[in-house]
């Protein structure tokens, strides 16, 4: 029976390859019904807003957001952005925030995945506890960390004072110098579990025989990791790092609730800055222009993201 179906499959494929696109579309018209609901919803809520954002970026729209009264200003919004000092400050913050958070979340996640790869009593419980920060609401987590970092009664400050490392509790999130590192420590706390989950799954694809063979041949633990385990993790690592980078780049809740971008813009990143321009100061045009720039950056990242995600599929098909 399997040969019969395979033959039928093959003949179908040959037939579709011969006919034109229109005819193919017609042949498969019923298939579109399955994706139609998804497409309709996404067109309304995603495609339309993208178009609108681009349009608004060329206009000055009054704070009331009365679209009738908008004035065409060409590229003025864009040049305003590039001339402002805040732009460069915020860009540097975004870069540091994304890079450092991604690197540390990945390294800690990899470490935890490797350390938990060995079977021992309580492993499941430990793994579950480590994942919790990633599951809970970022808003709840932000309040927890706000309390921990509290400048008078925060527990970290109290420990530092108790150990004699500081005279008085330091201002973690109220001072320009320490706010970004403090927020990154919190952000990594929330994100390393994601890397851990992905890499744990990746570790299961490493063939046991290879590791054992390497051991028999006298490879050290480090050599086995570097020459056997790590190459097998490359695919999943690429995807994980990209996803981490994208989600860090797009962070909003943590900086917004913890500091609102302050003090003096020291913890503003692109997303919070755009939000404040739009809904805080009602500068819709500038905020939209920012969004378009962001969109372009993300499209570049997205190119690599799609390539990383589909590269394997193509290989699989070729084989």
């Amino acid at each position: 029976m399997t040969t019969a179906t395979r033959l039928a499959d093959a003949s179908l494929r040959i037939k579709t390859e011969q006919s034109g696109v229109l005819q193919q579309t017609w042949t498969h018209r019923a298939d579109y019904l399955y994706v139609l609901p998804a497409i309709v919803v996404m067109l309304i809520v995603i495609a339309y807003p993208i178009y609108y954002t681009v349009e608004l970026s060329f206009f000055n729209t009054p704070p009331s957001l009365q679209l009738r009264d908008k004035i065409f200003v060409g590229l003025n919004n864009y040049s305003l952005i590039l001339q402002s000092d805040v732009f460069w400050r915020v860009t540097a913050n975004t870069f540091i925030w994304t890079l450092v958070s991604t690197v540390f979340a990945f390294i800690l996640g990899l470490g935890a995945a490797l350390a938990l790869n060995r079977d021992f009593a309580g492993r499941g419980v430990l793994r579950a506890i480590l994942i919790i920060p990633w599951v809970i609401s970022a808003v709840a987590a932000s309040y927890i960390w706000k309390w921990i970092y509290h400048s008078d009664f925060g527990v970290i400050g109290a420990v530092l004072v108790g150990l004699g490392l500081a005279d008085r509790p330091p201002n973690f999130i109220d001072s320009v110098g320490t706010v970004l590192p403090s927020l990154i420590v919190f952000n990594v706390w929330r994100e390393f579990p994601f890397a851990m989950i992905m890499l744990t799954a990746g570790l299961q694809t490493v063939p046991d025989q290879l590791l054992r063979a390497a051991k028999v041949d006298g490879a050290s633990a480090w050599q086995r990791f570097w020459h056997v385990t790590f190459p097998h993790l490359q695919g999943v690592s690429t995807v994980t790092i990209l996803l981490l980078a994208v989600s860090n780049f797009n962070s909003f809740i943590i900086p917004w609730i913890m500091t609102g971008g302050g003090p003096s813009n020291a913890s503003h990143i692109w997303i919070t800055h755009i939000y404040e321009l739009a809904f805080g100061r009602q500068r819709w045009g500038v905020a939209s222009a920012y969004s378009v720039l962001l969109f372009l950056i993300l499209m570049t990242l997205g190119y690599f993201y799609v390539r990383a995600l589909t590269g394997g599929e193509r290989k699989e098909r070729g084989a």
Partner: protein
Amino acid sequence: MTSMTPLVATRTRRPIDGWRWFGRIFLVLMLLYTAVPMIWMLLTSIKSGFAAMQLPPQWWPNEPTLASYHKLLDPTNSVGQDFLRFFWNSLFVSTATTILAVIVAVPAAYAFSRFDFPGRKFLFFAVLLRNMFPAVIFLVPLFILMRLLGLVNTHGSLIVTYLTFGLPLAIWLLKGFYDNIPYQLEQAARIDGATRFQAFLLIVMPLSAPGIIATAIYSFIGAWNEYIFAYTFLNRNDQLTLPVGIQRFFSENTTDFPGLMAASFMMSLPVVVLFLLLQRYFVRALTEGAVKH
């Protein structure tokens, strides 16, 4: 050769132990990093407001009290009334989103997995790419759109938005599951006289139950924790979901840290329980696509 093996084994044992100890210490540190904030939340939530604000702090509460929880869960005072309403709003929005997401994502994921229609690749890239864009880019036009549709200050605005923004990942997760269900099963059913739809409904759907569960949890947790859209679209106090409601509430009572910690705990509880119960499906679905190649 045979005499070599034990020699090698003794030589490699010590470095292995070194790494093993390194791993243990690392895990203990990670456990502290992860658990200390959560433990401190729990300990603070059972203190009185006065006990929470002392220096040096009471490491263990002198007089543990559940007063904060009582206050939040008591419908007769205004705090409890608000909190329970926020909780109910969150539950309603998350459940509605989850049900709709499954209804829309299941056929779409099935089509992406099985059919070879023109435009399929393009659509799939579009679906993947959506995952990259932050909510803020869409916020202004969506706000205009919701105003146009008269949905500002309704739960409908949130459900529609969460549905759309959850869909790409939901479809991606489910597609991984359908890819693993052998096509031959459906073909056999169709040879036995089932239509394509019957084969889908009777053969594929039951087999993909774990995938659907995973997708449902993902949608639910996503909707439960969402903040930006709720923060922007909702203004009326009786409509707020938990993340926004808690923020609004505690911006007025900035010093009630035990109350804030108790609220954070109650808000985290449903998703953590849901996750722990069903984590097997969830983790599998999340990693399915990423490790396959």
